[in-house]
């Protein structure tokens, strides 16, 4: 790598032509003993030290003529001999380049070693987050509630999208709360490095702690908003079943996925503000595409005339997108209506499936449809089956967290810059 060429010169200024480079040598001759300095411009520089910089520095092989003169090394003690390149000297004493990043495994270990910092940072930030709002921590609950209220008002009441989805309000609220977890993790982590610049600059610690901490902040808020969610859906008459326990593995996988996203966005957002400007639009599109408001399993995919009905490939893609996967799994765990109307829940029955998709053709009165036929989507073929959903949930989590970690780690030493 660094094939530096070291040339020992004994220079007697009086005999040399007025070459500026050679003058520079005499100006910058290395002094090995401190305190001998007489200041710049002195021509009694002792043995000169001409050091060609390595090929990567000057973009070509180091030759004597192209060599950049090394300036004088100040404050050097007796251990540094005149002809040893500084880089070799540093490596000989186990010094690392200040911009070198730790090996990935060591980095992972150091993150684990900082776990108390990560959780402590998250908890403290959570407590401080709403300290300037009069309603304080209440906003942790109010924000998702208000979100749900707005969407219910617009899509449920004004536009009447709930046609075809049994138990629309629990369906909607669950979707919003689950998506909100991923959404907030992405949004906050895109600014995490900029927000914590003073901390990053002042203290040496593995920077990955910060996006991890931000996901844990959201996880802590999720616990509270899920308590609200449980109250809403229980009040709505949802039975409490063992299926509810499934939310633990689902949330664990979703958290892993969010960590991966947070790592990636933290690095992207560290350099440019553009990312955090663009992100809201990307995320809103993602939300509509993930079936938070509509059902991409039933309403959009099984009714003739809808775009997804004619393009099953697109329906497949939408249903395996990570947000949709975690939302669908959570809905199926918490909401009985969703579980029993999920396509594939019953053995395929062409007539019943067709009745769900086009009740007008079978002259089904609206009240019968709402109470009975609305569940017949379960007799249709699933586009993505239940077990496949779990596979995708795990797959996305693993892929995101590994890719995100490496992507973040590769820029570890660059985060405090700018």
């Amino acid at each position: 790598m660094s094939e530096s060429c070291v040339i020992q010169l004994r220079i007697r200024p009086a005999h040399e032509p007025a070459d500026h480079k050679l003058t520079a040598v005499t100006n910058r001759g290395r002094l090995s003993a401190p305190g001998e300095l007489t200041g710049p411009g002195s021509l009694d520089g002792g043995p000169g030290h001409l050091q060609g910089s390595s090929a990567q520095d000057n973009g070509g092989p180091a030759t004597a003529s192209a060599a950049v003169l090394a300036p004088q090394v100040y404050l050097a003690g007796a251990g540094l001999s005149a002809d040893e390149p500084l880089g070799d000297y540093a490596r000989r004493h186990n010094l690392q380049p200040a911009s070198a990043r730790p090996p990935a495994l060591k980095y992972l270990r150091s993150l684990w070693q900082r776990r108390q910092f990560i959780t402590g940072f998250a908890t403290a930030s959570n407590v401080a987050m709403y300290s300037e709002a009069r309603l304080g921590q209440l906003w942790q609950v109010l924000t998702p509630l208000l979100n749900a209220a707005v969407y219910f008002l617009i899509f449920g009441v004004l536009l009447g999208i709930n046609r075809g989805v049994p138990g629309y309000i629990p369906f909607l609220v669950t979707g919003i709360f689950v998506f909100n977890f991923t959404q907030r993790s992405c949004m906050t982590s895109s600014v995490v490095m900029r927000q914590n610049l003073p901390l990053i600059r002042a203290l040496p610690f593995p920077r990955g702690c910060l996006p991890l901490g931000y996901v844990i902040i959201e996880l802590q808020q999720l616990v509270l908003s899920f308590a609200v969610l449980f109250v809403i859906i229980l009040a709505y008459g949802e039975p409490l079943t063992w299926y509810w326990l499934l939310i633990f593995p689902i949330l664990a996988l979703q958290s892993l996925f969010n960590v991966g996203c947070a790592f990636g966005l933290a690095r992207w957002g560290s350099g440019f503000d553009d990312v955090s400007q663009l992100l809201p639009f990307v995320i809103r599109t993602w939300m509509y595409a993930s079936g938070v408001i509509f059902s991409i399993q039933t309403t959009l995919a099984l009714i003739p005339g809808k775009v997804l009905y004619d393009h099953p490939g697109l329906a497949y893609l939408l249903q395996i997108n990570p947000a949709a996967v975690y939302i669908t799994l959570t809905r199926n765990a918490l909401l009985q209506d969703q579980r029993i109307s999920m396509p594939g829940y019953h053995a395929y029955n062409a007539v019943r499936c067709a009745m769900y998709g086009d009740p007008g053709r079978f002259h089904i009165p609206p009240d019968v449809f709402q109470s009975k036929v609305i569940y017949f989507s379960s007799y249709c073929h699933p586009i993505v089956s239940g077990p496949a959903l779990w596979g995708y949930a795990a797959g996305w989590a693993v892929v995101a967290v590994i890719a995100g970690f490496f992507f973040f780690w590769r820029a570890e030493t660059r985060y405090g810059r700018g």
Partner: protein
Amino acid sequence: MAEPMVVVDNLHVVYRVYGSGVDKGTAATALLRLVKRQRRPSIREVHAIRGVSFVAYKGDAVGVIGRNGSGKSTLLRAVAGLLPAEEGMVYTIGHAALLGVNAALMENLTGEKNVILGCLAMGMSPQTVKERYQSVVDFSGVGDFINLAMKTYSTGMGSRLRFAIASAKNQDILLVDEALATGDAEFRVKSHRRIDELREHAGTVFLVAHNLGEIEETCNKVIWLEKGRIIQAGENVAEIIDAYLAATGGEPRVREPR
């Protein structure tokens, strides 16, 4: 033989500054720039460090002096690994803690949380943090303010607490960029003592200060920077400071005979 802690090898640092001057800064010019695939025209290069080489050893306290804009802070940030080298290399043992005059660590959190989390972030165990907590708070001298958010602190209080936190661990390399300037006389004495302790624990301290008396009292070596180059450096701290004062037109320092 002294072991080197920081080796700076022919370091050049170039800043690229955006958003200065020519660009009108409207959306239309920004779009035009993208269409034409130009770099941002307002980009300006500032060659802040121009070939600096030196070695700092265990137990050194190195003062860095020079006028405003001579590259002192840039040099420290490069040693901390916070600035990429355009050319040359900085070698260090471990990572450096850099204390500047900027804002709080975690400004929304209380001083107490800043102490605890800061110490945890540096890799202390919760047990050690518990043991050292009181001494850090006492050292910082912020008193009752420890329970208030750090953004409510005065500049002096903030820098005292930050110095107290960063020096709670025996850092290998501590870079202090004017962070002590806002402290009062009492704190200056304390921090001086703390820097001596760090040096005894085989740490290396870099100190940027315009208060030359502080440099002379604290440091055993000094580097005089001018326009990104080293003018003089060495262990003859008093001589170099006098030379610097003479060059900048200041009065020579009056010293008590020792």
